[in-house]
C-alpha cells in the first residue's frame, strides 16, 4: 500500500506544523501555486509505521550476506554514523567562515592526508560525490592537462572490455571518445592490442586493478609504459581498492590519477543507492587541476582552498563540499582501522574470496578464470548449468534470495556468459561463506531435480518475481491519485 493510499484529506502530523507565520506581503497572484501538491495527509504514527514496515522489506548488510561483486558490501560501522551525526556537525552551514568549523575541517584535512598516503598520490580532492563523479574529475583533469600543454588532439580514452559501465560513460561525459581494449583468457589486457590503440589521440587509459574480472593485472607496469610512452595518462578506478589497500599504492603501479569509492572501501553506507564519495588523488603534474574546494593548512588551523589557490582547477563539481557527511564517516572508519587495520582489509578480503572460490570449485561450480588467484572477488559462470537445465544465472540469483542471501552481481562483466561476480568482503565469517557454498550447492541440485522451482524463484520474499518487462513497456513512474 502506498503512503498516498493511507492519506485522508485533512489529516496531519500536528507536532510538525511550525507556528502560524507572521506577516509578509502576499505573493503576486500570477506567481502563486493554485493546487496543493499531492502529498500524503497522514498522522505521524501512520508515517512511522509505514516506513518502518517498508524498511523491513529490504535486504541489507545489517540483515543479510550481500556478496555483490564490485560493490564491496561490508560492515558499515555504527560508530561512524554516530560520530558524523553529532549535532554540531549536522548544524554546520557550508558557507560559515572557516574559523567556525575547525573541527570539521580538521577531519577533512586529515582524510586528505590519509588518502594521499594510501594511493601514493601528491594531492587529493575530496569533493566528488561518487565514483562516477571521481572518474569525471579524473578524465577532466587529464584533458585539462593535455590542453594546458597545447595538446588538444588527445580526446581518446581507452578502457578494457571488462570495464564498469561508468568508465565509458565518463569518457563521453568528458567529451572524449572511447576505445575498447581486449582482455585475454586469463583476464589480462592484451598488450598487443593496446599498443595498436595508443597514439597521438590518446588522452589516457582507465583501469581498475584488480580488474572487474576479479584478477590482478600483473602486467600493469608494462601497460603504464605503453600508455605513457604514447603520451597518455593512466586513470585508476579505485572501486576495487579493497583488494590491495595498504599493500599496493596505485601511484607505484604507474597511475597518474585515482578515485576512491569511500562507500565501498571505507565502508560508508550505501544507503540503498547512495550517498557515496569519490575523492580523487593525483600525481604532481595533475595537482594544479584538482576540483575545488580543498582543505588547506592555515597556521595552526585550516581553511578552504578554491580557484584563488588553484587557478587551473577543473572547477567545482558540487555547490559546496561534496558529500561532507560521508567524508566524516570515512574519516572515522580510517581512524578506527588505522594503518595496520587498513592493510588487514586487503588481507582478509582476499582470503575470503580465495577461500570461497576454492570451496565453490570443490562444490562443482565453474570458474571463469580458473588459472588465476581471486583478488577480493571472482567470477563463476553458470553457462553449463543453463545449457543443461535451462536455469539461468538470474534464476540462481533469485533463488539465493530464498536462502537468505543477497544475490551476487549477475551478467557483469558482460564478456563472461551467465556469470556471477562474487565479492564476500573481509567482514564476513567462514561460517557465512560456508553457508553460501551450501546454498549454491543446493540450488544446483534443485536446478537438476526441479528446474521450475528455481526458475520461479523467489518464493519467500515480500513479492514474487517482479515483471521488469512490463515495468519498462508500460512505465508507471509516479502515482497520480486514485
Amino acid at each position: 500500500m502506498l503512503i498516498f493510499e493511507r492519506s485522508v484529506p485533512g489529516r496531519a502530523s500536528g507536532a510538525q506544523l511550525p507556528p502560524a507565520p507572521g506577516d509578509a506581503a502576499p505573493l503576486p497572484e500570477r506567481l502563486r501555486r493554485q493546487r496543493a501538491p499531492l502529498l500524503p495527509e497522514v498522522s505521524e504514527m501512520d508515517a512511522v509505521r509505514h516506513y518502518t514496515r517498508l524498511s523491513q522489506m529490504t535486504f541489507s548488510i545489517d540483515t543479510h550476506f550481500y556478496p555483490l561483486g564490485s560493490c564491496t558490501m561490508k560492515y558499515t560501522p555504527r560508530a561512524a554514523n554516530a560520530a558524523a551525526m553529532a549535532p554540531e556537525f549536522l548544524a554546520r552551514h557550508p558557507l560559515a567562515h572557516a574559523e567556525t568549523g575547525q573541527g570539521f575541517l580538521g577531519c577533512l584535512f586529515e582524510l586528505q592526508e590519509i588518502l594521499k598516503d594510501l594511493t601514493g598520490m601528491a594531492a587529493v580532492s575530496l569533493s566528488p560525490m561518487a565514483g562516477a563523479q571521481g572518474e569525471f574529475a579524473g578524465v577532466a583533469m587529464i584533458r585539462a592537462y593535455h590542453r594546458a600543454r597545447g595538446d588538444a588532439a588527445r580526446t581518446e580514452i581507452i578502457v578494457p572490455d571488462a570495464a564498469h559501465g561508468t568508465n565509458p560513460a565518463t569518457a563521453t561525459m568528458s567529451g572524449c571518445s572511447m576505445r575498447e581494449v581486449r582482455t585475454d583468457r586469463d583476464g589480462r589486457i592484451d598488450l598487443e592490442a593496446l599498443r595498436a590503440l595508443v597514439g597521438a589521440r590518446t588522452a589516457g587509459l582507465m583501469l581498475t586493478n584488480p580488474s572487474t574480472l576479479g584478477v590482478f593485472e600483473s602486467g600493469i607496469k608494462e601497460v603504464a609504459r605503453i600508455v605513457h610512452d604514447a603520451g597518455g595518462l593512466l586513470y585508476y578506478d579505485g572501486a576495487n581498492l579493497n583488494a590491495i589497500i595498504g599493500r599496493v599504492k596505485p601511484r607505484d603501479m604507474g597511475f597518474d590519477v585515482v578515485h576512491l569509492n569511500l562507500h565501498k572501501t571505507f565502508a560508508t553506507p550505501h544507503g540503498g543507492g547512495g550517498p557515496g564519495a569519490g575523492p580523487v588523488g593525483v600525481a604532481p603534474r595533475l595537482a594544479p587541476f584538482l576540483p575545488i574546494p580543498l582543505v588547506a593548512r592555515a597556521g595552526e588551523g585550516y581553511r578552504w582552498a578554491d580557484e584563488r589557490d588553484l587557478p587551473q582547477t577543473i572547477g567545482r563539481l558540487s555547490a559546496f563540499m561534496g558529500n561532507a557527511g560521508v567524508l566524516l564517516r570515512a574519516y572515522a572508519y580510517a581512524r578506527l582501522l588505522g594503518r595496520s587495520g587498513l592493510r588487514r582489509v586487503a588481507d582478509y578480503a582476499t582470503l575470503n574470496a580465495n577461500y570461497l572460490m576454492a570451496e565453490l570449485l570443490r562444490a562443482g561450480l565453474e570458474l571463469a578464470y580458473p588459472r588465476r588467484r581471486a583478488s577480493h572477488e571472482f567470477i563463476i559462470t553458470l553457462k553449463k548449468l543453463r545449457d543443461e537445465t535451462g536455469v539461468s544465472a538470474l534464476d540462481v540469483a533469485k533463488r539465493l534470495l530464498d536462502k537468505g542471501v543477497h544475490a551476487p552481481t549477475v551478467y557483469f562483466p558482460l564478456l563472461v556468459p551467465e556469470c556471477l561476480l562474487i565479492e564476500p568482503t573481509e567482514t564476513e565469517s567462514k561460517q557465512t561463506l560456508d553457508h553460501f557454498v551450501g546454498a549454491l550447492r543446493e540450488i544446483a541440485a534443485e536446478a537438476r531435480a526441479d528446474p521450475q522451482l528455481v526458475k520461479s524463484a523467489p518464493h519467500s520474499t515480500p513479492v514474487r518475481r517482479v515483471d521488469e518487462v512490463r515495468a519498462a513497456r508500460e512505465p508507471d513512474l509516479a502515482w497520480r491519485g486514485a
Partner: protein
Amino acid sequence: MPFIPHTDAEVRAMLAAIGAASIEELFDEIPRELHAENFAAIPEGVPEMALMRLMSERARADGHYLNFIGAGAYEHHIPAAVWQIATRGEFYSAYTPYQAEASQGTLQVLYEFQSMMASLTGLEVCNASLYDGASALAEAVLAAVRAQGGARRVLVPRSVHPFYRDCVRAIVRNQGVEIVELEYSRETGATALEALSSAKGAIAAVVAPQPNFFGVLEPVDEITDWTHAHGALAIGLVNPLALALVKPPGEWGGAGADIAVGEGQPFGAPLSGGGPYFGFMCARQALVRQMPGRIVGRTVDAAGSPAFTLTLQAREQHIRRAKATSNICTNQGLMAIAATIHLALLGPSGLERTAACCRANTAALARRLAAIPGLRRRFSGAAFHEAVLSLPRAVAPVLEALGRERILGGFDLSRHYPELGHALLVCATETKTGDDIARFAAALERLLAGEKSC
C-alpha cells in the same frame, strides 16, 4: 581485529582449503616491486571509545551558532522520526536495489519520492535523485542539449547561485556546451527580460531560477514563453520548498517548463557542512529517455501483486555504456528516502506552513535590519526567503565579528557580485523566532555603531 571475524584457527583452515601457506601467498600474482610497506602518514587505529571522544570534541569545537545564512543550504526543522527511520540498518546499509524482490522497501519509498516530487514540480516524471542541486542543473543542461540535437548554447541568468554556475561550467565545458549568462535588473533583482532578447544564435535551453539566488521571484512565465518561442527547452531551477507557495514549473507560461531541477536539501537533509544533500530532476514524459540516473517503476509480480523495480535502465551506464545519458551510478538514495519520510510527516499543510513561515520570518528580518542606520534593502522584487541588504562598509569583517558572538550573519555577496557593493544575503527560516531576529539585529547595530574601525 576491528571488523574482521577470523580466528587464527579459521585462517589456517581456510588457507588449507585454498592450498596456500599464508595470506601473503595470495598476493603472489602482484609483482614484488609493487608491494608497499611505508604508510607512515596514517596513524594507527584507535578503539571506538577513543574515536567517539575525538569526534565529539571536534564537533564541540565547532560550537553552536545562530545561523542566518541560506544561500543554497537552509536550516530547517527535521522531524526526529526522519533520521531515526532512515538510519535503520535496512535502509542505511543496503546497496542500490538491483534485486527488486529483495528491495521492495527501498524501491517503494523511491517510487513515492518520485511521485511527490513530480506532483510538487507539476511535471510527469522524476528520477530517484542526483548528486546535488548544482550537478543536477548541469545534467539538465546536458539532457536539454541532447534532446535538442543541434544547438549547444544555453542561457543561464547571473541570478543563479554562483557556485551552481561554476559547477555547470565545469561539467558541460568538455562537451562543447556554451553557457551564456543573462544579467539581472539592478533594481528588482530578477532577470532582465531585455537580456534574453539580446542573446544571439540558436539556443538549446534557458534556465529560470525560482526563486533566484537573491531570494527574488523571477518572471518565469515570460522566460518560459520566450524560450519556447525560440525553439528552446525551459529548465526550471527551483527551491522545492518554495513550490508549496509558488507556481510549479509544469505550469510556467503557456506550455510549462520542460525540466525542473533543484537542491533537495530543504527536505530532510541536515546542513552537515555541505552534504550529503540530493539533486532531483523532473521532466515532461516526452523527455524521460533523456533522464540521467535511476528511475523506479511500479509493475506487478508473478502473482499479479503490485511490485516495484528499477526501470528504463537502457538509459544508464551499466547497459548503454558510452551512449548512456550520464555516467551517474551511485546517487543519493538515502537522502531521497529521508526526504520522502520528511514530506510524509509534513504533508501539504505542514509544507505550506513551513514555506510561509520562512517567507514571513525573512521579511521580518529584512525589515528589522533595514531599520538599522546605514542599511537598506537592495531589491524591490517579490521574494521567497532570502533578502539582500546593502551595508555601509565591507561585509567580511562584520561577519567575523558577528561570528565571535556566535551569530552567522549571512553570505557576503561582494566577491561574486562586486557591482552590488557591500551586499549581504540573509535568510531566516521557520527555525528562527522573533527573539533570534532581535538578537541578530541588536548585535549588528551595535557592531556598526560602535566599532567604526571593524
